[in-house]
């Protein structure tokens, strides 16, 4: 741009330049040129990375979490350079499923994977990824199921409860036009050839724990230090931080860390209240520093229900970008509660980041439940059946108070409320 060049070498660096005399009459805040941090690189180059799309709100580059319903709740997807923390459900059933969806999405999109676990060998984890659903096969099954549902939310105009017609519908089926998120069949395994064609790095802590450290002892546990070094190594070697300008084709690094904070990583915060309270938080901080300076996105699952010191959980939440909590009904009294019979658990969106913005996308729906249907993991607004008889209402009122107390503080960073309105 000729006008910019005449402004002199002082204005040569990135950022806003007053383009005086430019024919296009640009404003003084014209961004131009690539920047060091991955998320701000020049717009046109990044859009061409497979499996990403810019956010409608602020142009932030997003990747899919592997669950289109969750993407919708998080404002379109997971932003590149951020951490998604999943608070595990009690038996780590659904959180490990979300973990696998995240990795499977990476394979389908051709992203590089980095899988870290202290419990399972990453190679085994990859063998168990769910198979992607092809649109035509799925549509047949989906239509079948749709017919079985009595649709109160069909296109018939509602006469009495007309306000409900205005509520947004949650997307439950695949949108064949978008190639951003994919649906997966949890009952089938990912085809072997797709796994072999993908590029992945595994970090299995029991294998790496014996090698020596070349860093001064700080308050991080051994496992976390090794993992950080491993991640930093991969980012640097493969040029995800832009350090290798020769690489023409940019790609995203998807980092998945399983059961972070559990005793298998050598951390004792799940065993005792006075454990090493800084190890995990320091790890998260440095990890986020690595992510912010590279083209990567990370999903961490953490057994927060085991952490003894509650202060650590709030610190961990503040140090993560997006936090989603899963609560499954298995083994709890809710399993037999008629209110929840259609669902397998609740999902709490505890925190959504405000990136590059004062405001952020937050869903109006706070009561969300998930269920794992035959092939599909769906997230829906929690529908409570109407109170029809005296006995039903008496027992259900108590149960209603419970979840709303839980949902209250879990309403995310917009506002938390302890008192629930009592009508």
């Amino acid at each position, binding site marked *: 741009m000729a006008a910019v060049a005449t402004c002199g070498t*002082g204005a040569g*660096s*990135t*950022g*806003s330049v007053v383009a005086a005399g430019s024919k296009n009459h640009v404003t*003084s*805040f014209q961004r131009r040129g690539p*920047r060091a*941090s991955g*998320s*701000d690189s020049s717009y046109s180059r990044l859009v061409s990375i497979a499996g990403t799309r810019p956010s409608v709100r*602020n142009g932030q580059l997003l990747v899919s979490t592997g669950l289109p319903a969750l993407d919708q709740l998080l404002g379109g997807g997971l932003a590149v*350079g951020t951490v998604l923390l999943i608070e595990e459900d009690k038996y780590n059933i659904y959180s490990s499923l979300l973990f696998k969806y995240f990795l499977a999405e990476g394979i389908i999109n051709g992203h590089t994977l980095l899988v870290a676990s202290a419990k399972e060998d990453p190679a085994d984890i990859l063998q168990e990824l769910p198979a992607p659903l092809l649109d035509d096969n799925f549509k047949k099954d989906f239509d079948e199921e749709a017919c079985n549902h009595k649709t109160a939310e069909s296109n018939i105009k509602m006469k009495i409860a007309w306000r409900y017609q205005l509520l947004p519908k949650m997307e439950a089926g695949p949108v064949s036009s978008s190639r951003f998120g994919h649906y997966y069949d949890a009952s089938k395994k990912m085809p072997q050839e797709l796994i072999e064609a993908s590029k992945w790095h595994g970090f299995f802590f029991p294998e790496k724990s014996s090698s020596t450290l070349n*860093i*001064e*002892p*700080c*308050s991080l546990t051994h496992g976390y230090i090794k993992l*950080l*070094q491993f991640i*930093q190594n991969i980012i640097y070697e493969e040029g995800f931080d832009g350090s290798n300008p020769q690489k023409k084709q940019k790609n995203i690094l998807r980092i998945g860390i399983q059961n972070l904070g559990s005793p298998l990583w050598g951390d004792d915060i799940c065993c005792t209240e006075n454990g090493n309270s*800084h190890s995990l*938080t*320091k790890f998260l*901080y*440095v990890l*986020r*520093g*690595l992510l*912010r*300076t590279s083209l990567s996105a990370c999903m961490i699952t953490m057994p927060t229900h085991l952490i003894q010191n*509650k*202060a650590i*959980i*709030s*610190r961990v939440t*503040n*140090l993560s970008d997006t936090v989603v909590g899963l609560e499954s009904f298995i083994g709890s009294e809710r399993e037999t509660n008629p209110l929840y019979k259609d669902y397998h658990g609740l999902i709490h969106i505890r925190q959504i980041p*405000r*990136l*590059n*913005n*004062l*405001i952020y996308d937050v869903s*109006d729906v*706070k009561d969300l439940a998930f269920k794992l249907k035959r092939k599909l993991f769906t997230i829906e607004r929690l529908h409570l059946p109407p109170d029809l008889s005296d006995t039903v209402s008496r027992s259900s009122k108590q149960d209603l108070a419970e979840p709303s107390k839980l949902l*209250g*503080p879990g*309403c*995310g*960073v*917009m*506002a*938390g*409320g*302890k*008192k*629930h*309105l009592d009508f």
Partner: protein
Amino acid sequence: KCPGRLADYASAYVHRRIPGGPGKLTLLCDANTDGSFLVHHFLSFYLKANCKVCFVALIQSFSHYNIVGQKLGVSLTVARECGQLVFLEGLKSSVDVFFRAQAEPHPLQFLREANAENLQPLYEFVREALKPVDDGEAAWRCPVLLVDDLSVLLSLGMGAVAVLDFIHYCRATVCWERKGNIVALVHDSGDTEDEENNILLNGLSHQSHLILRAEGLATGFCRDVHGQLRILWRTPSQPTTQRDQSLTYQYKIQDKSVSFFAKGMSPAVL
């Protein structure tokens, strides 16, 4: 009355009311909500007021603050280039400090150490950043130290006392010696029993001249009222004469501004 730029009014009021001019410690605090909009506000406020700003940004990247700053009317890149803004990008520097041994003491040196005693390197960084330029003409008005946020330092292994000492040293240099201001954000962890954070918060509340506290609504989430802002003026230098005053407003954050209104007077309700 709906004072749009409320926090401007508050800071200006404080500066006029308390004798001795500037040299104030403003505490930003959030409970059950995100108070970062206050940080963005003060950053753009002081940059527009031509003050020299040292921003210790521990929780987000430079580009994040820059993009929001542009919406609020300032360019951090220009400010940094011409020397008005000294920006410590915590996240990026932490990677440098952690993986590579540094030749000179780094402000975030404590990340490498097992039992860091104090935040002296960070204090030295602030002092160096805000030292007076003696080239004759005063280019900028009073120096300002802005920290986002102090609670992160606790998560990184520093004790509450070390952080309080750091603020104390900064006050001595920035507020008393250089007649500048300090604005720092601390999270209120509420009932999550974070002892260290409570010590830090109580200690700072006691020493602050102005406390801006963003709280979530007691009744929960609301689309049109994002929270409540409580402003508390304190006069620690004159404990007997004036009583502390406080005001409460509710607010809604928009794309380029924040609008304030009296309790219950949200435009959505009226």
